[in-house]
């Protein structure tokens, strides 16, 4: 019983990582119909920025003046902000120029961007080829019920992630800019005819998506304790898969897809003897299965090709 609860907890944490990235994918695809292959690497940058800021704070001795909780909260907020800006920067420089080119070009461009980001971190961050320890920015206490241990830091970052996703939902559904985003995802030309400056709206979409990726980055750092320059590739592919399985363009889909993938992976490695090396295979097989038999995903609308 304890074992089961533990496994569910593990699966949940893994799923939330995927969900945070999947939501970004779904946002971008819904809004401007592109697949941002290097979105996972943006998350990775989030982790690294967190490490850098924490180290800076440490060096500057700011701990003498402010209690750790304030310092660390500032670090989190700053990290998210910086990642958001960086993500939008990438959009402006690499994605926007290809807005009206075939999708193929954008796809390859984002793949190349991913390569550049990874190599940049590897080459220019000190000891970049090595795994980096993520600092302990949250309290290290835990809830303990017998043999079950729930670390507070996991719960905190999970909470932040849930809060931000909920905030994003509210934003998209109850504000004017959110309305603009929804309008663009339906029909970009009509939206611009209605006076929506889709350029700015797209930038805002990327800002939101990148901030969520930043949370995923911090989550990775807190939950796995270690980050490396190449974790973004796999994370991005799995996040994208989760979004597709759930239904690209549909936010509930991203959540469902993330849960499905996270749980499938965890359970394969936990309950199937000798299954752990195959857990990635399992995840990808699920993706292929969905793509072939239900490409609109679990909750996506079935789109008919208009002639």
């Amino acid at each position, binding site marked *: 019983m304890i074992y089961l609860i*533990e496994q569910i907890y593990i699966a949940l944490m893994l799923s939330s990582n995927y969900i945070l990235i999947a939501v970004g994918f779904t946002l971008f695809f819904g809004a401007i119909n592109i697949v941002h292959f290097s979105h996972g690497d943006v998350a990775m940058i989030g982790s690294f920025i967190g490490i850098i800021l924490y180290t800076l704070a440490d060096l500057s001795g700011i701990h003498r003046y402010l209690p750790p909780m304030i310092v660390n909260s500032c670090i989190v907020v700053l990290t998210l902000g910086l990642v958001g800006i960086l993500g939008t920067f990438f959009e402006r420089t690499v994605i926007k120029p290809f807005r009206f080119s075939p999708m193929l070009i954008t796809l390859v461009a984002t793949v190349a961007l991913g390569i550049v980001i990874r190599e940049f971190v590897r080459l220019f961050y000190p000891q970049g080829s090595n795994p980096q*320890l993520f600092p302990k920015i949250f309290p290290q206490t835990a809830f303990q019920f017998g043999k079950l241990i729930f670390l507070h830091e996991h719960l905190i970052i999970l909470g932040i992630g849930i809060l931000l996703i909920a905030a994003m939902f509210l934003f998209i559904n109850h504000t004017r800019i959110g309305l603009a985003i929804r309008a663009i995802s339906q029909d970009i030309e009509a939206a611009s005819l209605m006076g929506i400056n889709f350029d700015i709206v797209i930038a805002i979409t990327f800002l939101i998506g990148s901030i969520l990726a930043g949370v995923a980055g911090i989550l990775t750092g807190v939950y796995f304790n*270690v980050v490396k320059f190449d974790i973004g590739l*796999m994370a991005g592919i799995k996040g994208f898969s989760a979004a597709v399985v759930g239904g690209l363009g549909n936010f509930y889909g991203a959540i469902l897809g993330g849960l499905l993938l996270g749980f499938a992976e965890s359970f394969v490695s936990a309950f199937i003897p000798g299954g*752990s090396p195959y857990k990635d295979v399992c995840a990808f097989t699920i993706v292929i299965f969905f793509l072939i038999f239900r490409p609109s995903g679990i909750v996506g609308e079935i789109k008919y090709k208009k002639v």
Partner: protein
Amino acid sequence: MKTHKGLLFMGMVLLSILTFFTPANLIAAEKPLVKIGFIGPLTGPNAAMGLGSRNSADLAIREANARGDLPYRFELVVLDDASDPATGVATATKLCSDTQVAAATTHFNSPVGLATIHVFHRYGVPQLFWGGIHPDITNKYNYPEVTRINPNTLVEHSRLVQFVVQNQGYKDWSIIYDTTSYGKSCLDAVKPALAKIGGRVLSEDGITVGTQDFRGILSRIKAMKPGPQAIYFGGTGTEAPLIKIQMNQLGMRDLLYAGVTGFDSETFNKTAGEEAEGTMIVGKAQIDENSHFVKAYKGAGYKEYYEATGPYAYEAVNMIIEAIKKVGPKDKALLAKTIRGLEYKGILGTTKFDEFGQTLSGGLTYKVSQGGKWVIWETSDYSTGKRKLPGK
């Protein structure tokens, strides 16, 4: 216009042909040049190891040139195998086609080595391995050109089980391994070693490199009744500390965590911090902080840390130079034979090769993680009883 274009063309033709015929040595050198090759992963996931070893090899060359008592001038030819066998074969071919290259020290990844030994053998160029532990590299073909300075997995694991099972009494094990060539070799070595000495394997789990979440597997191990007394991981510095951290987070502090030289790097302790406390390994040669190598390395100002494999690359280059000093660089077959016959005293202790070119010592030690550092068992608090290993 036409004449101009014609002249332009002629000029370019001449210029390019000229560069083709550039003489090789513009500077008249006093001492004959001898090139020593270095191949390792300078890019890719194992770049840290490759770069550290490259720097160490470079250090050895610099010191040799500075000595002044050698009749040759040495130059290190550095090539990147990117942990990819095809690239490795290309670099090996390049080195071997250069007649000025006397010998080479190579590779961190065994699959790359397994592909290139055929190239070096074909050209008869001596090849010393500073990394790559697969037994087949030396034992399968027994090419006279191939020698290996680092120990192979069979030796490492027999020593590990000797200590952990026999000496310390951890009989029941759970094994986790990564699905690379290295991890598989570890698995293939640790199982028979355990069986031979009376240990038991309760579970076996493979993980892909790049996995960060081991909680699923660990949770299952935790729930096993009866549970193991030790968890062994066959893999290297990226995943190894994560497993220990997650073990602790799941409350499995009474289980011993053990491994072999794959753990032996600063990365392990840096990453796991105080969570690493009490990890047992068979480690590589302990290089004293005050030793000449460490001081010289730091003084040379390399960007990267020398990692666990650095000293082996350093030793390899020195051994090559020693052999060249004895018989000269021209006769490669003789050079290979000389290298094999060397009994070299260096930073790894005494290095000697067996009939397959595999080193007999490799400076293996027992180490335990204490206070965030690898400490030789004999000098640690654990051996005196001041600290206790998990579960004791």
